[in-house]
């Protein structure tokens, strides 16, 4: 049970590469914090710095009111679940879980109680005598979790623990991790590149990019009010449509100031309708491609050139394409012309460089 506080944490490698460029955030007691970002954004490095597996160039990491910068990983009172599980291949499941406790000189009966308890929670009781090599991916994952649980640490650290599992199992384990964390109410930091995992697990979501924090907050707040275009396009699938604004006239119609340069619209905020909305945006689209997912359908629509107010951001979409999400039952045809409208309150405005959100 502990808070984890990072104060201006930085990491510079001997080569001069700055992996972490000054990060501040706090995870409250019992909260589930998810670090999310594209690969190479420094999220794993940051987690490993909290774990004590990487040195901290400058700044402070505080776990439960104790600055741990100079403290060995084993002394930090943390437990870590690795992406490849890192189970000891020559030890039985029981010994894998008991090893850390034995190294701490815990009494045998106490170790046994803890391991049996963890095995019961994770439903791996029948496998305690097996070796990791005889287990399936999901079972190994559970053992790795078990190894973390028996320690009863102040903080759980998860480094992409689900990325080696198949899609179905990943969802099941995701739910289980969340339940388990609620039940144990242990402060947790979880690293992932999967925005869906991030959204579903997090109490606090930290979106990282290029060694910096883009936005910190409650997942829904981040989804509804992304602070930058990076966050807007990273959180949510399919990503938010980002359309450069062409003229001051549109800018003022939308109520934005001169610095507003990009208009963001989530695919699900479109409504197919021939009406127009006051203060909102209407796009006339020619359907270029359709993806049926079952419950929903994604339309890749090309805007009629010239006649439109806004132009698609070439970085995010094929030129001129806009993604529109509609209910699955509706079946439009390729080549059909539709009008997609968005009410004003669903619009997002960003500065031209994408670094700043402008409230409407």
């Amino acid at each position, binding site marked *: 049970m502990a808070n984890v506080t990072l104060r201006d944490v930085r990491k510079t490698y001997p080569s001069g590469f700055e992996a972490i460029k000054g990060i501040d955030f706090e995870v409250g007691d019992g909260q589930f914090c998810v670090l999310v970002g594209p690969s190479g954004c420094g999220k794993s490095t940051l987690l490993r710095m909290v774990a004590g597996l990487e040195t901290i160039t400058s700044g402070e990491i505080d776990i439960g009111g104790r600055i741990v910068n100079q403290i060995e990983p084993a002394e930090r009172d943390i437990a*870590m679940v*690795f992406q490849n599980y890192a189970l*000891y291949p020559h030890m039985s499941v029981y010994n894998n879980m008991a090893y850390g406790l034995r190294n701490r000189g815990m009494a045998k009966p106490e170790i046994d109680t803890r391991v049996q308890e963890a095995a019961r929670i994770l439903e791996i009781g029948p496998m305690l005598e097996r070796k990791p090599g005889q287990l399936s991916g999901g079972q190994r994952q559970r053992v790795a979790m078990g190894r973390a649980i028996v320690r009863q640490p102040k903080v759980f650290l998860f480094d992409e623990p689900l990325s080696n599992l198949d899609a179905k199992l990943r969802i099941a384990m995701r739910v289980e991790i969340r339940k388990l964390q609620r039940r144990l109410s242990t402060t947790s930091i979880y690293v992932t590149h999967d925005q869906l995992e991030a959204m579903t697990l997090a109490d606090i979501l930290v979106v990282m990019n290029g060694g910096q924090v883009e936005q910190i907050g409650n997942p829904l707040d981040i989804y509804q009010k992304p602070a930058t275009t990076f966050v807007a396009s990273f959180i949510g699938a399919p990503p938010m449509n980002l359309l450069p604004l062409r003229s001051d006239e549109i800018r003022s119609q939308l109520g934005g100031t001169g610095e507003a340069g990009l208009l963001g619209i989530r695919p699900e905020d479109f409504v197919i309708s021939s009406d127009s909305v006051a203060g909102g945006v209407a796009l006339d689209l020619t359907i270029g491609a359709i993806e049926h997912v079952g419950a929903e359908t994604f339309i890749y629509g090309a805007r009629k050139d010239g006649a439109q107010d806004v132009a698609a951001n070439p970085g995010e979409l094929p030129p001129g394409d806009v993604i529109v999400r509609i209910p699955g039952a509706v079946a439009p045809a390729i080549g059909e012309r539709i009008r997609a409208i968005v009410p004003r309150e669903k619009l997002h405005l960003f500065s031209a460089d994408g670094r700043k959100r402008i409230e409407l």
Partner: protein
Amino acid sequence: MVEHRRFGNLLPHLVLLAGVAIVAFPVYLAVIASTHDNTVIANGQMPLYPGSHGLETYWNTIVSGTGKTTRAPVGGMMLNSLIMALGIAVGKIAISIISAYAIVFFSFPFRMTAFWTIFITLMLPVEVRIFPTYKITSDLQMLDSYSGLILPLIASATATLLFRQFFMTVPKELVEASKIDGAGPIRFFFDTLLPLSVTNIAALFVILFIYGWNQYLWPLLITTRDDMQTIVIGIKKIIDVHDALTEWQVAMATAVLAMLPPVAVVVLMQRLFVKGLIETEK
């Protein structure tokens, strides 16, 4: 590939059997010769079936030797050889696994220099450095001793290289998990790395034991006392007789006895080998 060619398989098998016969015949001959009286062998009319002096010959060979040339029982030679071979094999493995551990898992200044220095010694076997090695062994009063037989031979670049390659395949996360589990470098080495290396150690042990057992030049140089002779030298001495009849039955018995420990090591370790191959742990 499934093939059902009854006669197609016959020819390869015949070739293989012929090969086995060619290799095994001299061994068979040695075993047979060791069971006959020396006069039968000496007059060139040794039969290809076992004689009746087997037990007697082996008993004499092990307990008293030839009495003429080696002046020592072969049992003692075998013990010397065994101590030397085991010492070399265990010593080489112990030293090289520790060196490889340092090179792979620790970062210290001149780490690569250390590695390459070890690597270069591949080009310096005992035969090349024999004079300085003899001088040092002699200065350290290690002539005619087991330490003198073993120590100069136990540095092994090959084994270090092999362990290094294996250690580099050990996932980094395993080291980190150990760190978090509170295992320091020594605990990690004994609790995780050593158990994972068992099959490598077994493989090396086989090779190094035979290497040690077959040592000829070095023991010949530094042992002068009869009771320090190794069996490989013993065979040579038993055959090289001047002004007398070579005791062939003793020589052959010694040869057979010299074969047994390496064969035993191979047979015993092979089981561990196979076990290691089936249970891929990692």
